[in-house]
């Protein structure tokens, strides 16, 4: 057992993946000598050498497109985008190619590859460094879209993603990177992709979230329990494409009430999809309209204005109370 923060946990998963499979290679800007701008790749160049941990020139399209070629050749690339806002430079490679090779070659070529990228607000970063666009990748057929929320599930999901036979977009909530530590088992541990986790059980209301928003969501659940005596169930989606409909349905049929929380924009976001699924599977079980607490459909503000912008526990509690009182 080691107490690790998320950066160290991700580093551990990468080290484990590099050690267990010599086809695994890491590509990205400043991941080698500099050990990553967040130090996620700390000491990996030293341990595995420049053929496994590769500093690339400044071109996201070529990192992803080249990664596709490496995977076609038989390797298992793990590409880093320095920030999720710069993955847009590689969007055509992700959408038009990374998501499609298995299907269009009728299974002849597959792409066991991962694109890691830090996402989300709250760390006083400059423009383009705070966005959350998981819904775009969730809308793209052929990808897995994974977002851990704690050091332990980050390590387990990253290792699983690297072992996975199909391409995975792996968002790292940078607001959680160094926020807290968690006990991690010494042995490599994985968690299945596509499965949500009930983080705490309850019977009055379900809070559904993922990634960095799990912290305010859990805080809200605590407040609702301690201040209102409400029994709140909290669901961590962990993978937002595919979405674990079964887990959502099971919870909603028990509680009849829900609030979905994410920091990305609202329109066509993950919240909308979760609400649509609840509508499709469990309308009769609903005691109140499901609410969503999300980023607004505006540009993420520069950081002087970000703290108020980001959904916090109070906003979640308020919505939950309205739903409970409905």
């Amino acid at each position, binding site marked *: 057992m080691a107490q690790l923060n998320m950066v160290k946990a991700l580093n551990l998963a990468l080290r484990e993946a590099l050690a267990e499979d010599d086809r695994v*290679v890491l590509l990205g800007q400043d991941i080698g000598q500099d050990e990553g701008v967040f130090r996620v790749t700390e000491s990996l160049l030293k341990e595995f050498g420049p*053929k496994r941990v590769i500093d*690339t*020139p400044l*071109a996201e*399209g*070529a990192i*992803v*497109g*080249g*990664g*596709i*070629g*490496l*995977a*076609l*050749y*038989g*390797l298992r690339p793990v590409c880093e985008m320095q920030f999720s806002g710069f993955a847009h430079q590689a969007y*055509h*490679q992700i959408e*038009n*190619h990374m998501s499609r090779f*298995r*299907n*269009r*070659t*009728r*299974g*002849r*070529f*597959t792409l066991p590859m991962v694109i890691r990228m830090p996402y989300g607000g709250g760390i006083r970063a400059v423009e383009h460094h705070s966005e959350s666009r998981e819904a775009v990748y969730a809308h793209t*057929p*052929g990808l897995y879209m994974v977002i851990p929320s704690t050091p332990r599930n980050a390590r387990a999901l990253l290792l699983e993603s690297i072992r996975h*036979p*199909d391409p995975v977009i792996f968002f790292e909530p940078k607001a959680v990177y160094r926020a807290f530590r968690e006990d991690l088992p010494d042995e490599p541990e994985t968690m299945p992709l*596509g499965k949500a986790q009930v983080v705490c059980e309850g019977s009055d209301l379900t809070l559904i979230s993922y990634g960095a928003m799990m912290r305010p969501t859990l805080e809200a659940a605590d407040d609702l329990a301690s201040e209102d005596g409400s029994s709140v169930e909290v669901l961590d989606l962990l993978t937002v494409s*595919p*979405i674990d*409909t*079964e887990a959502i349905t099971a919870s909603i049929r028990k509680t009849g009430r829900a609030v979905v929380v994410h920091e990305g924009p609202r329109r066509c976001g993950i919240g909308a999809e979760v609400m649509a699924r609840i509508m499709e599977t469990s309308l009769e079980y609903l005691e109140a309209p499901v609410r969503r607490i999300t980023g607004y459909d505006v540009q993420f503000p520069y950081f002087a204005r970000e703290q108020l912008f980001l959904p916090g526990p109070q906003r979640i509690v308020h919505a939950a109370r309205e739903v409970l009182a409905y």
Partner: protein
Amino acid sequence: MPRKRITIRPTVEYLSILNETGDLDEALDPGLDADRCLYLYRLMVLTRRLDERCINLQRQGRIGTYGPSRGEEAAHCASAIVLEPQDWLVPAFRQPGALIHRGWPEEHAMLFWGGFEEGCRTPDGVNDLPLNVPIASQVPHAMGIAWGMKLRHDPHGVIVYLGDGATSEGDFHEAMNFAGVYHLPLVVFVQNNHWAISLPLSAQTASETIAQKALAYGFSGIQVDGNDALAVYVATREAFERARSGGGPTLIEAVTYRMSVHTTADDPTKYRSDDEVQAWEKRDPIARFERYLRGRKLLNDELVREIEDDVQERVRAAVERYEGYRDRIDPLDCFKYMYADLPAELVAQREEFRQAIEREAR
């Protein structure tokens, strides 16, 4: 602290071996043996006949929009025959002869342009990517494969084909730059056919040659007469020798001409003159190579007829195999190859689709 002209180390060359009348520059003759020559000739003729047949199939509504390769046979066939099986080939969408040489069934292009994913199913054991539609986006894939070779000390190379228009895309640039930095065994083969749909090369880039674009990445470029099978062969062979021996990437610009429409949906009379097309007809790469082979007494009327007959039979058989295809597809196939393990929500969607099809078939 002067003002001075900077000299650039890598070079840009021009190469031509067979002139328009089929005469050879003997000093540059690669000395291809008779079998190899006839194999290449046959491949180019097959490519031309398949192309003609596909245009026909499109007119009859048996395939969809089709992009012909007429006039570009020397460029893509004479370069592809340089490869060993362990080398990789990454096409754009105007290299049918190259793929056939590599082991693809003759009907692959009919399948692709006929709307079947099966046209993108690389045969087992063949190291080729399938046709690629978004312009230039295959160049990074080829670069990545070459990168894999380099990382694995695999002494082979990769050729990637693209058009003149494709050199304007960011993907071309980024992949070229990586290839230079990592010194990859990559041969970037531009079929400069002078047009990108309606845009002439002169409006595509202000650079005098495409070959010189290599200088931006620290490696060498060569411009070859792309309708001269021998020049194409020689330049590609040199580039592969360089690639396989750790000498890094090469950019080859094959100057050729799109003798036909861009695709069957295109009307080139809107943007180019008949004169221009006719001038290029005279430089037809197959006719030129034929003249040369006749000069070398490797080819005569009888052998030409025999080759034509053989090729026609292969085309006929390919069409027959293609026609048998439609019956073998299942609309649910769109779920079949999406993921190694189909996620639950897609299992449900597939079932929804299955039921809809069943209902709608009633």
